[in-house]
């Protein structure tokens, strides 16, 4: 294709899917732990969880940059134990996506967990299930519509992530350029056609996801 490069599209999808896995696991776990937590500072922790949503992504990106940069605590650990760096790599884009969409998954899960009937969890307990099994076989399926919303939100948010990504993954064509970066880039040289095409592609990806999920649910 002459106009549009496929690399940003593939990278964006890959980043969005991998982030989705991380954000699902971390968001659901966090919501589960917080549900059973009874401590005074709870609202503060929750505010912290919501912060990546409130902060302008560039700021989130800056904080991450300081953390994972060569002199940052994470960066130092990565160098010492794995002899590697994630700054300016696709892994950094995954990190950015996971961090910015975490609040979406967390809040959606939280809402969903609060509205399920605890009697059903009790029933599972009397039937000999461990808390772990209760959670995965009763709580999660009952909370599914809410989790699904959280997943749609997280996936979409990561797909559109720009500010934090460009900060820590850089904007390296062919390597760390995601769709939003490509859009920004095209707009810079006034290629509104290309920018528009990328917008179409990203919209199509969203459409496919939602269409797929709707049908998946109907199929169940």
């Amino acid at each position: 294709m002459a106009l549009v490069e496929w690399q940003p599209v593939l990278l964006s999808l890959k980043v969005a899917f991998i982030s989705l896995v991380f954000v699902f696991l971390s968001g659901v776990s966090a919501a589960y732990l917080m549900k059973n937590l009874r401590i005074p500072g709870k609202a503060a922790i929750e505010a912290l969880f919501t912060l990546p949503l409130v902060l302008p992504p560039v700021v989130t990106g800056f904080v991450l940059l300081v953390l994972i940069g060569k002199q940052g605590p994470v960066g130092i650990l990565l160098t010492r134990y794995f002899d590697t760096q994630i700054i300016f790599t696709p892994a950094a884009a995954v990190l950015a996506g996971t961090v910015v969409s975490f609040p979406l998954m967390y809040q959606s899960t939280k809402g969903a967990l609060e509205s399920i009937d605890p009697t059903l969890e009790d029933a599972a307990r009397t039937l000999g299930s461990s808390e772990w099994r209760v959670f995965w076989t009763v709580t999660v399926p009952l909370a599914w519509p809410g989790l699904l919303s959280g997943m749609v939100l997280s996936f979409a948010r990561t797909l559109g992530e720009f500010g934090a990504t460009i900060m820590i993954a850089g904007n390296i064509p062919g390597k760390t350029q995601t769709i939003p970066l490509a859009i920004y880039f095209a707009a810079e040289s006034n290629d509104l056609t290309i920018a528009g095409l990328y917008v179409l592609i990203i919209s199509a990806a969203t459409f496919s996801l939602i269409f797929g999920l709707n049908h998946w649910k109907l199929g169940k």
Partner: protein
Amino acid sequence: MLTVDITKKLSHFTLRIQFSMENKILVLFGPSGCGKTTILRSIAGLLKPDEGKIVFRNKTFFNSAPRTFLPPRHRNVAYMFQDLALFPHLDVSSNIWYGVKKTTPKSHVLYQKLLSLLKIEHLPGRTIHQLSGGEKQRVALARALMSEPEILLLDEPLSALDAETRYELQDELKKLQEIWQIPFILVTHSPEEALAMGNEVLFLQKGREVAEPPPSWHRNANGSSSVSTAANLQFFY
């Protein structure tokens, strides 16, 4: 041997109950709101009494001093809830199998037997909201029985069934208890059912055991005539 000796403050009175039972069928009988469900929930571990203890064989389920609380999943108690609590996201057969720890040829035999006994052979693939009230009740009963518990708690298990089915199931439950030799605790509002099934009846009134049967005991469950067999009562208790 199951020993229950507990106190629990409820909204309008305090439940204070104490009893021991062997591997028999014990009936809890008393007016609505007297604390029957609360007792079952305490034994199942879904509710912590304020004080007292619950001991089954050599296992302490609950003790207020020293503080002991055995989580429900380690009690091996099957509890059929008054409001059934079937899993709406699972089909009938997954509901029934849910409590089975290990699938064995024996459990498959039990499963088939329960389906035919409870007349739910045509339902396994249905989801819960496609069932009638009485069908739900039978599925809940099947789920409790399938888990092969060491104690069985039944909260008005047959209330939504027609007399014919009800009668058959009373019989079957009795036989089952004789085979399994575990304690059954049954809540019912029907004195006939209590008489037909119970080895012992515990009369409750506002959270306390009472010696005198309540007026309901002398009517049949529908209130229209007195029970012919009511005279036998004293032998049971």
